[in-house]
C-alpha cells in the first residue's frame, strides 16, 4: 500500500512537476482539482474521505478570480485555504504544506504577495496550525515554458534591447525540480524544526542579470536595458485599459516585477538537504546549448590580452569565474579572439566596475594571481608605454565602449 499524498493545483506549472515526481518516487498521489480526481475547487469543503489516511497535503491552488482587497471571508484564497487546512487536521493528515512566495509580506507591492502573507498569518492562528508548514518559494524557472517563467524567457529572447522595470532588484531563481523536491520533503519529512521554509537560493542576483542568463541560455547574445520607472509602467498599464484594440496588462504583474527584498534561505536549504544548481548551465542544458568551447576561447583571449600565457588551470578558473558572474559568453568577435590586442580599443577604465568587459578582465587578472611571481615587474619604459597608449586610446574607447557593456 503506497503512502498517499494529496496535491491541489496539480495541473499548474509547479503542481504538474510535483505530481510526476511524487509518483516516480512511489507515492499514491490524489489530485484535488477542477478537472481531475475528486471534484474540488478552492473554497469548497473537501470530503473527509478524500483526505483520510494521507501522509501529507501540498496546497498549490490559487484562484486569480477574486476581488483583490476583499475581506477575509470574501477572499476565496484565504477562506478556502483555511477550510482545507482545518479539514486536513480533522481528518488526521499530519502535514499541510502551503505554497507561499518570497514576495509574501505585509506591505508587499502586489496583491498576490499581500494575500499570501495574510494566509500565512491566518494559518498560524487557526486550529490547523500544528500541521502547517509554509514554503516561501522564489522565482521558479525551468521545465515547460509556461507561467511567469515562460513569459520571462520569451521576453529575454525577444530583442537585444528591452525596456524593463525593477532591473536592480534582487531575485532568487530556483529550478522547478528543486521546488518540487523541497515541497515533497516538507510534505513527507518527519518533525521539521521550522514552521516557515524559504525555497530559494542563498545568493540573490539582480533581475537584469537573471534576464541576461535567460537570454544567453537560449543562445542569444547580449541584452541591453532601457530602465523604466515603476510609475511610468503603471501608467502604461492604465493606458492599455483605456485604449481599444490592444491587450490590457494587469498592473498586478508589473507590481510583482517591482518586487520585494530577498529572503534568507540557508537554514531551510540545509534542513531540506537541497543543494541548488547554478541556473546558467542548467538552462543552457535545457535549451540544448553548451558554451564550453567559445567561452574557453574567450577566457584565453582575456588572459593573453593581459600579457599572460594561460595555463590549463588558469583557463579553468577563469571560465568558472566568468560563468559564476554571468559573463559567459561575453560575445567577443572572432577577430578579437584571434588577436586579443584588439581588446585595447574597447577596454573601459578599470574603475568602471559595472562594465562587463572590465569585470571580465578583473577576473582574468585575479585568476592568474596565484602563479604571479613576486618581484617580476614591467620595466619603466614598458609601463610608460602601457600608460601612454591608454591615454591615447581614450577617445576611441569612449566611442567603442558600448560594444561590450
Amino acid at each position, binding site marked *: 500500500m503506497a503512502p498517499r499524498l494529496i496535491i491541489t493545483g496539480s495541473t499548474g506549472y509547479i503542481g504538474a512537476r510535483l505530481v510526476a515526481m511524487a509518483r516516480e518516487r512511489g507515492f499514491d498521489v490524489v489530485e484535488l482539482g477542477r478537472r481531475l480526481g475528486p471534484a474540488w475547487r478552492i473554497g469548497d469543503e473537501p470530503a473527509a474521505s478524500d483526505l483520510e489516511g494521507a501522509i501529507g497535503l501540498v496546497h498549490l491552488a490559487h484562484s486569480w478570480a477574486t476581488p483583490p482587497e476583499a475581506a477575509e471571508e470574501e477572499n476565496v484564497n484565504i477562506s478556502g485555504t483555511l477550510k482545507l487546512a482545518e479539514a486536513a487536521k480533522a481528518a488526521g493528515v499530519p502535514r499541510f504544506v502551503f505554497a507561499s512566495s518570497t514576495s509574501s509580506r505585509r506591505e508587499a507591492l502586489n496583491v498576490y504577495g499581500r494575500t499570501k502573507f495574510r494566509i500565512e498569518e491566518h494559518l498560524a492562528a487557526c486550529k490547523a496550525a500544528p500541521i502547517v508548514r509554509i514554503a516561501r518559494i522564489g522565482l521558479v524557472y525551468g521545465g515547460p515554458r509556461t507561467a511567469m517563467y515562460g513569459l520571462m524567457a520569451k521576453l529575454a529572447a525577444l530583442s537585444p534591447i528591452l525596456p524593463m522595470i525593477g532591473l536592480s532588484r534582487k531575485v532568487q531563481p530556483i529550478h522547478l525540480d528543486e521546488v518540487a523536491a523541497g515541497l515533497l520533503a516538507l510534505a513527507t519529512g518527519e518533525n521539521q524544526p521550522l514552521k516557515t521554509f524559504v525555497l530559494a537560493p542563498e545568493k540573490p542576483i539582480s533581475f537584469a542579470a537573471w534576464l541576461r542568463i535567460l537570454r544567453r541560455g537560449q543562445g542569444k547574445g547580449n541584452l541591453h536595458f532601457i530602465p523604466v520607472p515603476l510609475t511610468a509602467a503603471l501608467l502604461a498599464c492604465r493606458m492599455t485599459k483605456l485604449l481599444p484594440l490592444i491587450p490590457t496588462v494587469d498592473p498586478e504583474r508589473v507590481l510583482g516585477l517591482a518586487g520585494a527584498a530577498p529572503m534568507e534561505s540557508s537554514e531551510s536549504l540545509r534542513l531540506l538537504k537541497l543543494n541548488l544548481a547554478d541556473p546558467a548551465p542548467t538552462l543552457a542544458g535545457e535549451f540544448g546549448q553548451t558554451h564550453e568551447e567559445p567561452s574557453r576561447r574567450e577566457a584565453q583571449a582575456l588572459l593573453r590580452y593581459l600579457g599572460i600565457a594561460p595555463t590549463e588551470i588558469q583557463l579553468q*578558473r577563469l571560465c568558472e569565474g566568468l560563468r559564476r558572474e554571468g559573463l559567459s559568453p561575453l560575445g567577443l568577435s572572432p577577430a578579437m579572439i584571434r588577436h586579443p590586442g584588439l581588446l585595447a580599443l574597447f577596454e573601459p577604465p578599470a574603475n568602471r566596475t559595472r562594465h562587463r568587459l572590465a569585470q571580465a578582465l578583473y577576473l582574468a587578472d585575479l585568476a592568474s594571481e596565484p602563479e604571479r611571481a613576486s618581484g617580476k615587474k*614591467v620595466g619603466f619604459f614598458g609601463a610608460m608605454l602601457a600608460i601612454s*597608449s591608454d591615454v591615447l586610446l581614450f577617445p576611441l574607447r569612449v566611442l567603442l565602449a558600448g560594444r561590450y557593456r
Partner: protein
Amino acid sequence: MNGPDADFIIIGSGPAGVSAAFPLIAAGRRVLMLDGGDDAGSQEESRSVRVLGSNLESLRTDDGSSPKLQTPAARGILEPFRRQSGITGDGFIPIGSLARGGLSNIWGAQISYLDAEDIANWPIDIASLQRSYEHVAKRIGISRNADVAIDADGEPVLPLGATAAHVLHRHQAVKPADGSFRLFPAVNAILSAARPGRAACDLRDDCLYGCPTGAIYNSRRDLLLLRKSPHFRLLDNMQAISLTHSSGWTVGTADGSSFSAPRIILAAGVLGTAALLADLLPFGEQGLRLLNSPTLAVPLLCPPRLLRSPTPTHSLAQLGLSLRYGSGASDYVTGAIYEVGTLPAQSFINRMPLGRKAGRAAFELIGSSLLVGTIYYPGDQSHSYIRRDETAGKRLTVRGGFADGFGLRDETLKKMLRREWKRLGLIQLPGASLAEPGIDAHFAGTLPMGAAGPFGTSSDGELNLHPGLYVVDGSILPDLSSKYVTMTIMANADRIAHRLAETEANSAL
C-alpha cells in the same frame, strides 16, 4: 546529574582564551575549552587556495571593502559569525569570529604596551600587567622592524621596507616642531627565527592571504601546545549559546550539548561575550556602552622612492606612530604605516581610471612609493551601544557612532597630520577616509573591571552578581586607549588566570 566536566570552562579559542588557559593548566587545573570553529583550513594550502579560496570564491567582483577583509582567509574567519551570531549593526560593522583562533587569524599583529598613565583608572597595578606582558611576549614571539643597516641591540628584528626606512630617516633628520608626534619602527608578533611548529617570516609579502609558515602569531597554534597537557580538553564546533546557573554553571551549545563547571571563563570576544550574556544582563533602554576606536586611513606618496623597487619585507605594519591632539591623558592617536607595494594590486587597480593593463603598470611603477597610514583614536571618541531588541528575542544590535565634537577634533588632527606628512616629505593623496565604526575591531569596555552595578566586573574579571562567571576578553578593559589592544587583552587574561590558578578549586559535590 554527573559531576562537573572541568574546573574551568573557557569559551573561545582566540588570544584571550588561550592566554587564560596556559596558567590554569600549569597549576594543574582541569580546563575544557569550547571552540566555535574547528581545525579546518589550518593545513598547508597552495597559494592558489589562499588567494582564490578553495572553491574560487574570490572570483567575484570586488565589493569595495578594505583589501584586508576581501581575502578568502578573512571571509572564512568572519562569515560564520556574521551569519550565526544574531548581532546586527546599525552604522556599525559587528566584527567577530567563530573560527578556531578567532580574530587572531586576521589581526595586524601590532604590539603596543600600556603604561601606568594609560591604566590610571583601572583597579590593577601596572607591575602585575607588566609581568603578564612578559609572559605573553615570551610565548608568542615578537620582532621589531629595523633598518638592516643598523645593528639592533640583541632583540629579534625583521628588515624594514626601503620606503618605510626612508621615511624614518627623514623623521630622525628633520626634527619635529614639538614632541607631540612620534614615529618608530613597528613591533609585530612575527617570528624572525624559527620555533617549534612555526617557521620564520619568509618576507614573501603574502601576509594578507594568511601566513602559511606560521610566522605571524595565531592562537590556533597555541592549541597544539595546550593539547599536549592532560589537563586540557578542546571541543570543536561547540558554539556556546546559553549560560545557566544552579549549583555550578552550565553552558549550552548550538548542537544541544551542555557542559558544567564551577567556574566559566568567557573569552568569546567583546561581541560574542555580550551575546552570551544577553539573558543575564539588564540591557534596558540605553543598552551596553561599547568602546571602539574610530579609524582613519590615509594614502601617502613618497616621491623620492618613485620608480624604485621595493625590498623584501612582510606586508604588516612597518612603522608605528603616535600624535597627541589634546591635553587629556588619553588624547593621543596611535597608528601604523604600511607599504602598499606589498599589498594585492587588484583592489588598487579597480579604483584607477586606466585600463587594467595600464593600471597594473602604473601600480607597479608607483607602488613602491605608496604608503598607507592607519590612525586609531581612543575609545572615548566613539559613541557606540549594544542594544537588545526585545521583540526579536536574543538578537542584539550594535549602534555605532562618534563622540560629541568628534568632527572638529578629526579636522584638527588631520591638519596636524598634514603638517607632519609635509615634514616627512610625504604627499597626502586624495581618498583619506574614516572607516565605518566596527571595522577597527578594537572593542572594549562593555563590562569594565572595577565598575559597580550589573555591568561591572571585579579586578579579576568576575561579573558582578554572578559569582563564578569570569570574563577575560576585551569586554573588561575599563577604557580603550588608541594603542593596539590585543597584547593588553592577552596580558590581562594571563594576569586573571594566574590569580584564578592560585585560588583553591571549589570541591564540586
